[in-house]
């Protein structure tokens, strides 16, 4: 325990065990996947090694006597606003290893969260609010290209009117919230199954991520969006036809410009079968699609996928929120995509180089406002739906995203938090103590799909109710009336430039 190399002493957490409460039941010993707790034979009691704790709080949650408290290590470095402790710790690590620093989950960096700088409107007197418990509220959302105008045909003999305009395929959502792309492999089968079940129960969609779709989940296909990413893992005709929608992943908010890497340890027999890669081999998805170097190339892939799905599934293109995102989105819309997903820099991931995660990309709020505005200005907003992702934390964020121009949102990190994730950020180790980002059979059991599916659908239902309440408060009875309705938003403490980018007025105006 003692006499650690110097960098070991800069561990982040300390385990506090209240000796009055601890009954030495060893539950903490069995729950800690980092082996920070152990049974000390000599002392005949449970002991711990602070240097091993990564702060997942699993032991704390399961201790039957609430004897544990996981705290930040109280001894800190000398206060220095330039050399914050994280920089020192990183340098110590890299001086030892010479390697790239990896990180899991979204960036913890303190960049402005514009959701928190925007306030919603509420109606008073003249345009009264609506009580969602008494009046019907419509959250139904359709994703896909909408016709510019609708033509009707009248049958000369019967006088019956029918729709002449041919509608493109749509995804029908009962609430404007979907489960974001998280691949089977990055998260385990229990959770993939739970997401599929919850999406089906809530009338929404989950996204396979880049990992294929296990055959046993094809039955949830009507609520599945299948992803095609650069590695093309698990992509074949039946897969493309199994989902209700297809998403081409170009970029990811948590690591724009970076490919994916699923370490060999996570590739068990089931993952191998689904991804079509050998057991135990690393699955590396390159940063670029090697057949896409221009909008024309993207167009070809979009139409290849439309062909493959017999024009029955809308095609989405997912990009990371980066500089000039609006122009990129315009190109994607013109290439024939039905849906554009914009993923902001606060999106989560299983593993990313920490420097990329914390320094590349832009917040989703700014990207979303710009994409919506640009598509409107160009008169092509109806050609595509916009899905916003990357750091949606609550129903308030959802409703603000919709007022800023999104048709729907994806939730990823919130989905994982619902089933226990404490954002410990060690997803890349394969030792996820909550049984989420792991395929270790002993750990993935910690997710009972019955419990997980229930929690996920509870979350969606709860947010749905809150959205109805907020809409009612604004005097609106359908989510459609809020979409892109920026007059319902006001900024607080934002500069003129920020207000201009978001396209909203300052509070008080």
């Amino acid at each position, binding site marked *: 325990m003692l006499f650690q190399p110097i960098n070991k002493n800069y561990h982040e957490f300390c385990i506090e065990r209240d000796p009055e*409460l601890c*009954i*030495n*039941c*060893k*539950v903490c010993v*069995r*729950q800690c996947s980092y082996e920070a707790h152990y049974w000390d034979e000599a002392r005949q009691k449970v002991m711990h090694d602070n240097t091993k704790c990564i702060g997942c709080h699993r032991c704390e949650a*399961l201790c*039957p*006597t609430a004897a544990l408290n996981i705290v930040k290590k109280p001894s800190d470095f000398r206060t220095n606003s330039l050399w914050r402790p994280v920089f020192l710790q990183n340098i110590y690590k890299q001086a030892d290893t010479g390697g790239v620093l990896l990180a899991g989950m979204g960036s913890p960096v303190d960049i402005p969260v514009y959701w928190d700088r925007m306030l919603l409107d509420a109606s008073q007197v003249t345009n009264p609010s609506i009580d969602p418990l008494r009046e019907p509220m419509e959250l139904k959302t359709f994703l896909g290209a909408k016709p510019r105008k609708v033509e009707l045909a009248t049958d000369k003999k019967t006088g019956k009117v029918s729709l002449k305009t041919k509608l493109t395929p749509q995804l029908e959502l009962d609430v404007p919230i979907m489960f974001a792309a998280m691949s089977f492999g990055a998260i385990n089968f229990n959770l993939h199954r739970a997401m599929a079940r919850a999406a089906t129960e809530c009338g929404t969609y989950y996204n396979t991520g880049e990992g294929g779709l296990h055959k046993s989940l094809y039955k949830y296909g009507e609520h599945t969006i299948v992803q095609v990413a650069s590695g093309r893992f698990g992509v074949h005709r039946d897969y493309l036809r199994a989902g209700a929608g297809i998403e081409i992943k170009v970029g990811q908010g948590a690591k724009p410009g970076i490919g994916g890497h699923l370490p060999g340890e996570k590739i068990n027999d089931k993952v191998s079968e689904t991804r079509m890669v050998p057991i135990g081999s690393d699955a590396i998805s390159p940063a670029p699609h090697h057949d896409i170097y221009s909008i024309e190339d993207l167009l070809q892939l979009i139409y290849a996928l439309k062909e493959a799905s017999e024009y029955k599934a809308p095609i989405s293109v997912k990009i990371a929120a980066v500089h000039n995102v609006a122009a990129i989105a315009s190109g994607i819309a013109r290439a024939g995509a039905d849906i554009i997903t914009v993923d902001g820099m606060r999106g989560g991931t299983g593993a990313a180089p920490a420097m990329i995660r914390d320094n590349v990309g832009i917040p989703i709020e700014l990207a979303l406002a710009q994409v919506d505005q640009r598509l409107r200005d160009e008169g092509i907003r109806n050609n595509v739906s916009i899905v916003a992702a990357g750091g949606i934390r609550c129903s308030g964020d959802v409703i603000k995203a919709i007022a800023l121009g999104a048709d729907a949102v994806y939730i990823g990190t919130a989905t994982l938090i619902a089933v226990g994730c404490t954002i410990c950020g060690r997803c890349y180790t394969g030792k996820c103590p909550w*049984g989420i980002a792991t395929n270790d*059979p*002993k750990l993935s*059991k*910690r997710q*009972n799909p*019955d*419990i997980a599916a229930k929690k996920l659908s509870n979350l969606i239902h709860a947010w749905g109710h809150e959205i109805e309440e907020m809409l009612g408060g604004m005097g609106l009875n359908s989510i459609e009336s809020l979409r892109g309705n920026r007059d319902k938003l006001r900024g607080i403490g934002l500069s003129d430039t920020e207000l201009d980018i978001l396209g909203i007025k300052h509070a008080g105006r």
Partner: protein
Amino acid sequence: MKRVYPDKEYCIGCHLCEVACITAHSKSKDVIIAFREEQGKDGLTACKKVFEKGDICVAISCRHCDEPSCVAACISGGLHKDPETGRTVYDREKCVGCWSCLMACPYGAIKRHPTENKIVKCDLCEGREGGPACVAACPNQALKYEER
């Protein structure tokens, strides 16, 4: 009859069911007193045992079998089948500590009392409001108390 069914698929081997069992069968009904005092003094033990091998864990307790081998093996009448509730009932007074039941049980669901010549066996938390304590405590719903 309703029985406790373990699910090895989702048992995470935390042993919280045993903690709950001990507390439910303690005099104090207080987890800390039960472990600190009653365990050592009175030999308080869980009626159930979590078996583990590799990734597989499963929490076993008396199955309250329809035709219990333990009852057939019992030489003193310490175990009998309650025809009304269907439970396999243990009468501590009559038990002579011969361990016949322990050897007869095909599930290994009967334990020796650590300090006395008696056995320890699941009584489905008779009289406990909310049913068996282990089922209520299991964090992963790996125990189900139901009719099958």
